């Protein structure tokens, strides 16, 4: 059905997207919690910073990533020296770009759910002996589960579709950074390659449909069907 080159693209896209949202999820939750529950100076600035990748054209985000995480960028050079992580022209760069683009969506979704958590339940948990961390883990987090599920769906879909930041920051290297959108873009440049474009687009759609169905299933298992979490 798929050619082996297409399989490679699919596998790479999945790897990049899954790593991106797995790494982003805890950060997104922490940011959402901070923004929902704390009042601190610079809060609006942090909020704006999180939203930045949504507002800027992806190509600019990619360019800024290049400046910061490129081999000569302040973060990139440190990451390479201390952690041995290279972003340029590497699938980790594609994952970083996808993560940055998915972050604002994930933060918003989780924040909405945290805002909806009844703080009286958290108080009740504390009188029962649960410290702040336990309250978070046993009450806040599970009650915010609908937001987490939404964040996963949005983040995954956004990662699967991310193009501009990836190609600008991590380039379009087959097997490394040529994810589905980059493959589609490459095909789109050529007259008459609509067939290839359609194949890859259908794969994208199928992937995200699978993710949607899986998430609806998870949500239904994880909630009573009305968005109220059971776990």
């Amino acid at each position, binding site marked *: 059905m798929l050619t082996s080159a297409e399989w490679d693209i699919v596998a790479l896209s999945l790897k990049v997207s899954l790593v991106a949202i797995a790494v982003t999820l805890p950060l997104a939750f922490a940011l959402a919690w901070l923004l929902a529950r704390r009042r601190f100076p610079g809060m609006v600035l942090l909020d704006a910073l999180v939203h930045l990748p949504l507002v800027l054209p992806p190509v600019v985000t990619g360019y800024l990533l290049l400046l910061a995480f490129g081999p000569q960028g302040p973060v990139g050079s440190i990451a390479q020296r201390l952690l041995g992580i290279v972003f340029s*022209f590497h699938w980790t760069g594609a994952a970083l770009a996808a993560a940055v683009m998915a972050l604002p969506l994930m933060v918003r979704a989780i924040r909405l759910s945290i805002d909806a958590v009844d703080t009286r339940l958290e108080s009740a948990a504390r009188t029962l002996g649960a410290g702040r961390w336990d309250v978070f883990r046993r009450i806040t987090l599970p009650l915010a589960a609908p937001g987490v599920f939404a964040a996963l769906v949005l983040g995954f879909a956004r990662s699967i579709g991310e193009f501009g930041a990836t190609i600008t920051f991590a380039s379009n290297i087959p097997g490394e950074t040529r994810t589905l959108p980059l493959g589609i873009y490459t095909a789109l440049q050529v007259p008459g390659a609509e067939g290839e474009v359609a194949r890859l687009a259908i794969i994208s759609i199928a992937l995200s449909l699978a993710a949607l169905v899986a998430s609806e299933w998870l949500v239904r298992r994880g909630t009573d069907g009305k968005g109220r979490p059971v776990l």
Partner: protein
Amino acid sequence: APSQEGDKRAGPIVLAAASMHDALEDAADAWARQGHARPALSFAASSAAARQIEAGAPADLFVSADEEWMDELEGRDLLVEGSRAVLATNRLVLIAPAGSNAEIAPEPGFALAEALEGGRLAVAETESVPAGRYAKAALVDLGVWNEVADRLAPAENVRAALQLVARGAAPLGITYASDALAAPGVKVLGEFPAGSHPPIRYPLALVAAGGHPQAGAFRGFLLSPQGAAILARHGFGTAERD
């Protein structure tokens, strides 16, 4: 044009390859100084513009970076017959970051792989983007393609490839001479031999769905000696015109 929404957008609509930006903006200014309504210049990848024309968008003039897309449109009778011409030509150059001390020039069998020193060669995408296809053809012709095929950093377009070099993400890159000319942060190491790749031509043509009364005149202006002078200032050649 059926629906020019007239008044506000008096000039013809020109869809042009993004790499022609500076030259065409200058030309449009010069044209407007002669008392004409300034054309509306829309810059995008040649493929995007061509697809819009295919979808029936009422553009007046199309300037492509790529003869393939012009052929495609011509084959579908979407162009005004007889209006196709070569507007400009370009050359391919090897570039490096401004501070680089690399000394290497494109010639048959040149030591490109070594010169990369483990880094990657920034090019436009070699299968789809015109500049990348020319680059690949040249590298194949010079006999070094096999050594560098898996050492490429293919970018979305020529400008992005240029940025990769300017930002030091890639030690070397291949771009058009017109791009490298004005770019800060990069230097030209050498030009690719003209015979090493197919001639680089930027064709233009009137779009059948258009029909702005000034479109033909602006086309003529671009092809005139005055237009050629402007293109030359931006690093394009015009010699190859028929």
